[in-house]
């Protein structure tokens, strides 16, 4: 029961998009998420003004299938248009119902 495999999807995105992204993710079916304030720089340069409050880093633990859906959605609606990147990794959780 303790070593359930899940995906940790991490998204870094400009602050202004935070609430839109969270809404979208919950529509896609994520059950929970954690957000921290972040700063950063990337190959595109900061496409938004720094004036708007930096980036946020959002982490959500999901099933592998949901991960696919999230990445599809980001590809279509975020990655090209906004200062946004995403990566995923394997994590182990202990309570299935939670994620």
């Amino acid at each position, binding site marked *: 029961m303790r070593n359930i495999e899940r995906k940790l999807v991490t998204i870094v995105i400009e602050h202004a998009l935070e609430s839109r992204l969270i809404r979208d993710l919950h529509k896609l079916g994520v059950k929970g998420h954690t957000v921290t304030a972040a700063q950063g720089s990337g190959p595109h340069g900061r496409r938004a003004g720094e004036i*708007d409050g930096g980036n946020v880093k959002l982490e959500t633990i999901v099933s592998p299938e949901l991960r696919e859906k999230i990445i599809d959605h980001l590809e279509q609606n975020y990655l090209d*248009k906004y200062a946004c990147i995403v990566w995923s990794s394997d994590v182990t959780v202990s309570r299935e119902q939670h994620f």
Partner: protein
Amino acid sequence: MNILELAIQNLTSPPVLAFALGLLATAIKADLRLPEAVYQGLSFYLLIGIGIKGGVALRDAEFSEIALPIVGTIALGMLIPFLAFSILGPLTKLPAYERGALAAHYGSTSLVTFTAAIVFLETAQTFVEGYMATLLAVLEIPGIIVGLLLASKGMSRSVNFRESLVEVLTGKSIVLLAGGLLLGAVTGSAGYSQVEPFFGGLFTGVLTLFLLELGLIAGKRIGDLKKAGIRLVIFGVGFPVIAATLGITVGLLTGLSVGGATVLGVLSAASSYIAAPAAVRLALPEASPGIYLTASLAITFPFNLIIGIPLYSVIAEALAGMGL
């Protein structure tokens, strides 16, 4: 005091100097950024504070006195972005979405430039109607919407455009400004006196810190000026003068004093760098901050702060002298 002395006094006021200090700090790569949370706290304070003060003044004003100026201001809010969009076409050859983004910025206005104008006119002992902050709030929004609409015309948008508009209208800057207005109008001078030391006494000091931060951000944009090109610089310096003249004219025609008309000119000339960038970012992601933010923050804002404000007060005097 003559106009030159006033201009110098404006230039040497703590907020303007703090902006210059921010530019300087960027030049020597000194990191003076306040923590993000504090910076957001300051802008929160400025927005609600200006709203409250405007609301208090609004309550003290006669309806008959302010009705016309409000109508005039709404008209300006719809006219100015059109004008900007049209002029930008032949001038810069930018695509419609870039022009729309710029129009949204120049159609909206700037709290900080407004405050600098108020301080300037106070020093010059020119009378200004108390309810100008109401007009600031009124002018904040229509320009953004018109600019976004102009940009979206002819675009096949996949993103939900209405969703973005709702996000803009329920965003921090609009709601704090409008909420402050409401709060001020209900509480009136009696209630305001309880919070005056906080929202009144500290205002210029907080503004000074905020402008230091804006200077840092503008400093980073100066490098983009070359990329932006001379035509954008011409627009960023020339358009405010046109918009100001329009604003002053509307102000005088709707019955404002010379001081009030000057402020309406400043509001018209000022371009937004808080509400509009956030809105454009959400609704028009293809537009480039390297263009609109650079124009608004690194060209027009310092121009208005340093040259514009005294200049518009001279124009207002002249137009009023012509019997307008």
